[in-house]
């Protein structure tokens, strides 16, 4: 017996095992490098711009010889909250209900078709949603608007919310559904009073992730929201948004604005990272099962 365990083959297995372990750890580290680099670099460049003024003031015009700081990005923060908030208002009910349908009525051909469409939609480049919104809304009403941007983002958010809702609902044990069905509960009642409450935190996670994803999108906003240097609450006119502002400011010849672009980028990273971390905490303390 002894002989077999310490034989040549055994030693080879141990060696291969170690080699593979080292390789996987290495691959993990390599894949994490860009993330760390981005966060560190953006923080390094952007953290200097952060100030109370940066967060509470709007754009201030710059002219040569003027030592202006370029004001703040409040108008972009407000714009992002309004645009993404509104698209969340539309996307959450649609996505959640579609997810319920996919999970609770999985077998039929309609749900197969819908699932395929949702997958295609989630793989679609975000600019396509923006261009579509441009053609269908902006060209029609002949005005750029936060609303058109919201619609472009809805297209982006719905598949994320749909798929996470579906996955989470699948985790609800079938035995719980059977318990209710065997008591004579109609299907809608079972879904509403038994299945949904058990999956609530997971669904909230999906919604938050979709929010984080949409908050960072630039492309669909470029052709729909346009950008606005003034603080506005009007969803039906051109607005400003954080990613959009970051993009526009990098094109400017002014050092101050370039610097502010880094500040806006850093702010976005903090928001997106913050939401993701929040989600982690949320799901750890209240597991869906």
């Amino acid at each position, binding site marked *: 017996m002894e002989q077999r365990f310490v034989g040549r083959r055994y030693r080879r297995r141990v060696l291969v095992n170690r080699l593979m372990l080292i390789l996987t750890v290495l691959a993990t580290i390599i894949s994490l490098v860009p993330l760390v680099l981005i966060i560190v670099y953006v923080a390094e460049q952007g953290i200097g711009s952060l100030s109370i003024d940066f967060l509470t003031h709007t754009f201030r015009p710059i002219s040569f010889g003027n030592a202006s700081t370029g004001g703040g990005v409040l108008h972009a923060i407000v714009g992002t909250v309004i645009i993404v908030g509104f698209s969340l208002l539309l996307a959450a009910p649609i996505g959640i209900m579609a997810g319920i349908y996919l999970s609770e009525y999985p077998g039929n051909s309609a749900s197969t078709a819908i699932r395929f469409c949702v997958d295609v939609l989630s793989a679609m480049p975000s600019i396509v949603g923006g261009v579509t919104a441009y053609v269908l809304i902006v060209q029609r009403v002949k005005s750029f608007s936060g609303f058109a941007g919201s619609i472009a983002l809805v297209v982006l958010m719905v598949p994320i919310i749909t798929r996470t809702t579906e996955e989470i609902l699948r985790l609800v044990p079938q035995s719980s559904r059977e*318990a209710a069905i065997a008591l004579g*509960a109609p299907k809608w009642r079972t879904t509403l009073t038994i299945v949904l409450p058990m999956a609530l935190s997971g669904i909230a996670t999906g919604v938050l992730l979709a929010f984080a994803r949409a908050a960072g999108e630039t492309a669909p906003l470029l052709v729909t929201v346009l950008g606005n240097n003034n603080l506005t609450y009007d969803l039906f006119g051109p607005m400003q948004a954080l990613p959009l502002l970051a993009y526009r400011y990098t094109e400017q010849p002014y050092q101050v604005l370039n610097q502010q672009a880094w500040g806006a980028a850093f702010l976005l990273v903090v928001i997106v990272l913050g939401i993701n971390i929040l989600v982690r905490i949320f799901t750890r303390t209240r597991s869906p099962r």
Partner: protein
Amino acid sequence: MTAIAANPNIQMPPAVDAHLVIDGLTLYYGQREAVARTDLAIPRKQVTAIIGPSGCGKSTLLRSLNRMHETVPGGRAEGRVLLDGTNIYDPAIDPIYVRRRIGMVFQQPNPLRARTIAENVSIGLELDGIGKREKEAAVERALKRAALWDEVVDRLDQPGVALSGGQQQRLCLARALAVEPELILMDEPASALDPIATLRIEELIRELMNDITIIIVTHNMQQAARVSDYTMFMNLNDRGSGGVVEAGPTQIMFTAPKSKQTEDYITGRFG
């Protein structure tokens, strides 16, 4: 009901007094026949046990009796099941109505997570929109019938999953009893429980049969012998689908089975 007499090995009481009459029922999963045509009468306020080897369609047959079979993808039934003369497979009958009269207890205790003990019992009543005071009384009544009241009376607001396995199963029984069904189907209710918890469930079954008809699927032949008045033996036929081989009073089934298959199974020669 001439079909019932067709299999000479089926010696159940006459269909006239029966609570449930299975009349030419064939069960399918998709195109596959899972349980071959069955004709059988289930006597009222008696315990009928279904025994047989794994995969012979015991659970499928049981689940078809309150139309739970069709909730599985591909699950399909042909034929009739008469509950006091009403065909529960009649297109005009809502399966919801059937399931309120015929309760069910599953193999794995399945109390609802994130719900308290009291809520677990009253969930079936909530579906009917029953008032609060009435609900409290019903919860107490159901828990007492399930012999669980004394153990949980001072922690009704604690989660149902905090109970032990045996208690959870009695909680599920209480949940089924709360809606006052006239018939309860049990799918190996004690197979996940220890011997003492099993004994308690068996005692309960004997008590409940005073006013409820019970059909119980069990792997355990001793259990069938202990709790049931009638026994059905199912086995796979040569086409690979399940079917009832023999049925009759438990005492006769276990002492003088007519079929060779039944005898082999009961004496432990297979299964």
